C-alpha cells in the first residue's frame, strides 16, 4: 500500500474537523483532512437555529457565562462535566467573534452588532444566528478560510480504520480515494476523529444520509471507549413525514406546539419554560399527547407559527417555511406545521478530555459530535452543538499541535495491510447478505426499542436483534465489483461502523436503570443520583461489550430537581 506521511490527520471536514486542522496547520505542522464528502456537504451545514454565545457588551444585561454553564449543566441533567461546560461558556464569545472576523454573516441588530434570539433551556437569550441556516453559513465561512491555508484536503476519501501499534499508540489511518479506490496509509503521530454523528442508525432521523457513525466504529475497533453511549437526542419537531428538521428557532421566535384540540399542551409538561423546555422534555410531551389520543390522526402535533406574520416568518425562519411548503405541502403562514420527534443528535461519543484527547490511546483525539467531552451530558441544549464543534475543534487543534511538538517521529512502521484485507473481504465474497438487508432491520430495531421511551424487555429484545445482525456483517457482500467510485463497498464499511456502535448503545441503555435526560426508562422513570450519577464507558472486546463507569466532574453546581 502507498504511504503518505503527515504530522497529523483529521478525519472529517465539518466544523470540528476543519477548526482543529486550522489550528494544527497554524503552528506549521503538516496536516491532512480526509472526508468522505466534499467539505461543504458535511452535516454541519444542516444545523439551523444558531450558536449560543455570551459576548461581553453584546448580551442580555443580566446574563453572564455562569448562567450559560448552569443552563447547560441543568439541560444535561447533571451528567455534564462542569469544567468542560465552563470552558464552553467562557470561550463562546471569542469563538463567535472569530467567525465574524472571518466573514460569517450573522444577523444584525439595527446598530450593526450581532443579533440574538432565545433557544430552549436558556435563562437569557444568547443564540447568534444566520437566518435559520447558521450551520451552513459557518461551515462555508470556515471551509473557505481553511481552503486558503496550508492544509491538504482529501475530499471523497473514505477512512477505513486507525493504525495502532503494540504500545497502544496511533500510527495513522488507512483511507481510500473513492473515485479511484486507491488505498493510502496516512502515516501520522496524531489522528483527530471529527466524523460527526450516527442518525442513520434510526428509522427516523433529521441527520444526513452520511451520518453513519464512522468515527465511533473506528475508535471502538482501535480499543477506545465510547462514553455515555445510551444518550441519544430526539428532536421534538421533525417535519411529518419526511423527518426534515424544523429548527428550535421556530419556538425561539414564538411558535407554539398544539395538539389536535388546539390546546397548548406544553403548559402541562413545562409550566414555566413551555415550548422552550429542553428537547427531551418536549419530545416526551409530544409522544405522550399522541399516545393519549390527542395527536393529529397519525402521530404528529402542530407547530403553530401563524401568529408571527408572513414577513417575520419568511425572513427569520425561511428554511422552516420552505421545508414545510416543499416537503409537507403546508403553508406555515396559514396553518400549523405537522411535526413529531426524530433522532437528531448523539450526546455519547469517543471519550476525550477537555483538550480533545483520548487518555487510553496515545495520539487519538476527537472533536465535535464524534467526541464526548461531556458538555452535553444526558441532553444537549439547542445551539450548543455548533458552539461545541468550534470551541473544542480549536482546543483539540491546539492540543494536537502541542502534542506533536512534544512527540518524536514514529520510528517503526506498523503494518497497515490487515485493515485492507479485512475491508476487501466484502468485495471478494461472491454471495451473502447485501448491506441494505441488515441496515433496514437495524434502523427499525433502534427506533422501536432504543428510542424516546425504553424499557427492560424492549432493550433486551433490541440487544439480541442487534447482536445477531452484527453477526450478519461477517456474511455481508458487495454485488458491485466496479473499481471506480464503488459506493456499495463504502456502504458496507459504513454498515460495519454502525453495527459496532449499535450494540454498544443498546447494551449501555439496558444497563442504565434510571431516567436521565434523553434516556427515559418507562420502568425506571426517576433519576437515580445515588447509583447512576456516573458516565458510562463502553468498550468492544471481541464479541462482547464491556461497560465500566467514570465519575462526573462537578465544580459548582450540585444536582437539583430538573423542572422547567
Amino acid at each position, binding site marked *: 500500500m502507498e504511504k503518505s506521511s503527515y504530522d497529523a490527520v483529521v478525519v472529517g471536514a465539518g466544523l470540528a474537523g476543519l477548526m482543529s486542522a486550522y489550528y494544527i496547520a497554524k503552528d506549521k505542522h503538516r496536516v491532512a483532512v480526509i472526508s468522505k464528502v466534499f467539505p461543504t*456537504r458535511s452535516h454541519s451545514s444542516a444545523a439551523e437555529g444558531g450558536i449560543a454565545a455570551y459576548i461581553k457588551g453584546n448580551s442580555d444585561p443580566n446574563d453572564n457565562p455562569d448562567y450559560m454553564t448552569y443552563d447547560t449543566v441543568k439541560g444535561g441533567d447533571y451528567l455534564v462535566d462542569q469544567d468542560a461546560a465552563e470552558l464552553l461558556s467562557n470561550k463562546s464569545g471569542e469563538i463567535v467573534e472569530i467567525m465574524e472576523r472571518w466573514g460569517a454573516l*450573522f444577523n444584525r441588530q439595527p446598530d*450593526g452588532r450581532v443579533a440574538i434570539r432565545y433557544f430552549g433551556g436558556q435563562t437569557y437569550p444568547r443564540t447568534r444566528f444566520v437566518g435559520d441556516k447558521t450551520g451552513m453559513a459557518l461551515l*462555508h465561512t470556515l471551509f473557505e478560510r481553511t481552503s486558503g491555508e496550508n492544509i491538504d484536503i482529501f475530499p471523497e476519501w473514505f477512512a477505513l480504520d486507525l493504525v495502532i501499534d503494540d504500545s497502544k499508540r496511533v500510527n495513522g489511518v488507512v483511507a481510500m480515494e473513492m473515485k479511484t479506490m486507491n488505498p493510502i496509509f496516512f502515516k501520522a503521530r496524531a489522528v483527530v476523529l471529527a466524523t460527526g454523528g450516527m442518525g442513520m442508525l434510526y428509522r427516523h432521523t433529521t441527520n444526513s444520509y452520511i451520518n453513519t457513525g464512522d468515527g465511533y466504529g473506528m475508535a471502538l475497533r482501535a480499543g477506545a471507549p465510547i462514553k455515555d453511549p445510551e444518550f441519544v437526542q430526539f428532536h421534538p419537531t421533525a417535519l411529518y413525514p*419526511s423527518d426534515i428538521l424544523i429548527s428550535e428557532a421556530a419556538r425561539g421566535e414564538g411558535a407554539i406546539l398544539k395538539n389536535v384540540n388546539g390546546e397548548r399542551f406544553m403548559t402541562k409538561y413545562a409550566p414555566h419554560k413551555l415550548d422552550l423546555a429542553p428537547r427531551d422534555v418536549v419530545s416526551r410531551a409530544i409522544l405522550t399527547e399522541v399516545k393519549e389520543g390527542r395527536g393529529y390522526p*397519525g402521530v404528529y402535533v402542530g407547530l403553530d407559527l401563524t401568529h408571527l406574520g408572513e414577513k417575520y416568518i419568511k425572513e427569520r425562519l425561511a428554511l422552516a417555511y420552505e421545508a414545510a411548503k416543499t416537503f409537507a405541502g403546508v403553508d406555515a403562514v396559514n396553518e400549523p406545521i405537522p411535526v413529531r420527534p426524530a433522532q437528531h443528535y448523539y450526546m455519547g461519543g469517543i471519550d476525550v478530555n477537555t483538550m480533545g484527547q483520548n487518555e487510553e490511546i496515545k495520539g487519538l483525539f476527537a472533536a465535535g459530535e464524534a467526541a464526548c467531552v461531556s458538555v452535553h451530558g444526558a441532553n444537549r441544549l439547542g445551539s450548543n452543538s455548533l458552539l461545541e464543534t468550534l470551541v473544542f475543534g480549536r482546543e483539540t487543534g491546539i492540543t494536537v499541535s502541542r502534542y506533536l511538538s512534544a512527540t518524536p517521529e514514529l520510528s517503526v512502521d506498523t503494518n497497515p495491510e490487515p485493515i485492507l484485507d479485512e475491508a476487501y473481504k466484502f468485495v471478494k465474497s461472491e454471495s451473502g447478505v447485501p448491506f441494505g438487508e441488515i441496515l433496514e432491520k437495524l434502523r427499525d430495531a433502534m427506533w422501536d426499542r432504543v428510542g424516546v421511551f425504553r424499557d427492560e424487555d424492549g432493550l433486551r429484545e433490541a440487544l439480541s436483534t442487534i447482536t445477531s445482525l452484527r453477526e450478519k456483517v461477517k456474511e455481508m457482500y458487495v454485488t458491485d465489483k466496479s*473499481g*471506480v467510485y*464503488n*459506493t456499495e463497498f463504502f456502504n458496507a464499511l459504513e454498515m460495519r461502523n454502525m453495527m459496532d456502535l449499535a450494540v454498544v448503545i443498546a447494551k449501555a441503555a439496558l444497563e442504565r436503570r434510571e431516567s436521565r435526560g434523553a434516556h427515559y426508562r418507562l420502568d425506571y422513570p426517576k433519576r437515580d443520583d445515588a447509583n447512576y450519577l456516573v458516565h458510562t464507558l463502553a468498550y468492544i472486546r471481541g464479541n462482547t461489550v464491556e461497560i465500566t463507569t467514570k465519575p462526573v466532574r462537578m465544580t459548582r453546581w450540585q444536582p437539583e430537581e430538573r423542572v422547567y
Partner: protein
Amino acid sequence: MSSTAELQKGVIKEEKTEIVVKVKRFSKERGEWWQEYKLAVDRFTQITEVLRRIRSEQDPSLSYRAACHMAVCGSCAMKINGAPRLACKTLALDLVKRYNDNVITLEPMDRFPVVKDLITDMTEFYDKMYSVKPRLYPSPQVLEDKAQHRLRPEDQRLLWKYAQCIWCGLCVSSCPAVRIDEKFLGPAAHAKGFRFLADPRDTIQEERMKILLDSAWRCTYCYMCFEVCPREIEPVEAIKLTRTYTPPEGMSEVSRMGEKHTDAIKESITKSGKLMEAYVYGKAYGAGAIRDFVYFLASGRGKYLLVREKPVNNISEVKKLMGEAK
C-alpha cells in the same frame, strides 16, 4: 411493552402510487446503460428517498451522492426528467403529476464528466470557485482584535442572498456561456465573488475586480442560472451588479466592449425608442463591425441594414424616461 413502535401504529395510511424510475447508469468497466426500477411512493417521497430505497431494497450497486435531504448541502444535483434539479428538493409524485407520466428519468448532470452512475467529477467547478478567493480579507486591526466589524442589517441581507450558494453545480451544468468560453468563471463563482466584492468589511476589492470584471461581461444573460438555482440565489443578478463596478485601471477588451454595447443600447433607445440592432452593433464594435457589414452585404441581405428606423410616436416620453428631456 409501550415503545415508540406502538405509538407509530396510528400512522396515516398514505395512498401509494407505483412509479418507474429509469436511471442512466455508467461504470468504467461496463460503459453506459439505462436501468429501470419499480417502486411505490406517496405524495411526500423525495427523489433522494427513492434512490435510497432502490439502493437498500433492490440494487445496492446504484451510485449517487446525497447527504442532508433538505437542500442545504448541494450533494444531489442531477438531471431529473431532463431538467437540472436537486433530487432532495424534488417530490416523485409532483413529477408524475406535472409530466402526466409515472416514468421518471434520472441522469447525471450535464457538462461535468461522469464518474459512476449519477456521480460526476466536479473538479473544474471547485477550481473556479477557489479562483475568486472565496474568503474575507479583513483589515489587520480587526484580525488583531483591535477593532470590531459592524455590518448594517441591509448589507447583511444583500450579502447573505449570494452567500447561500451551496456549490451544487446545477447553474454551471446548464450555463451555455461556460460551455463556449473558458474565461467565463460561471454563475456560481460570480455569486460567490460578488458576495465578497460587495462586503464592506473586505480589503482586497481592487484584486477582486481584476478577477471578476472581465468575466462578468462574458455572461450572455440567458437566465438559466436564475431558473435552475435551488436556493434562488439569482447568480445573474450578482453578475449584473458586478458590472456596475468600475475597474481601478484599464478595462479588459471584453468589459470595454460590454460597456460600449450598453451605452449604444441606451443611445438607440433614447434616439428612437427602439432597439436598432444594426446601429447598436456598429456603435459597439466600431471599425471591427465594418468587416461583418461587408459580409452581410455580400450575402445579399444588405437591405436589412438600410431600413431606416423611424422613432416611435411618443419619442418625447421616451426621452423623458431616459432623462434626456429638454
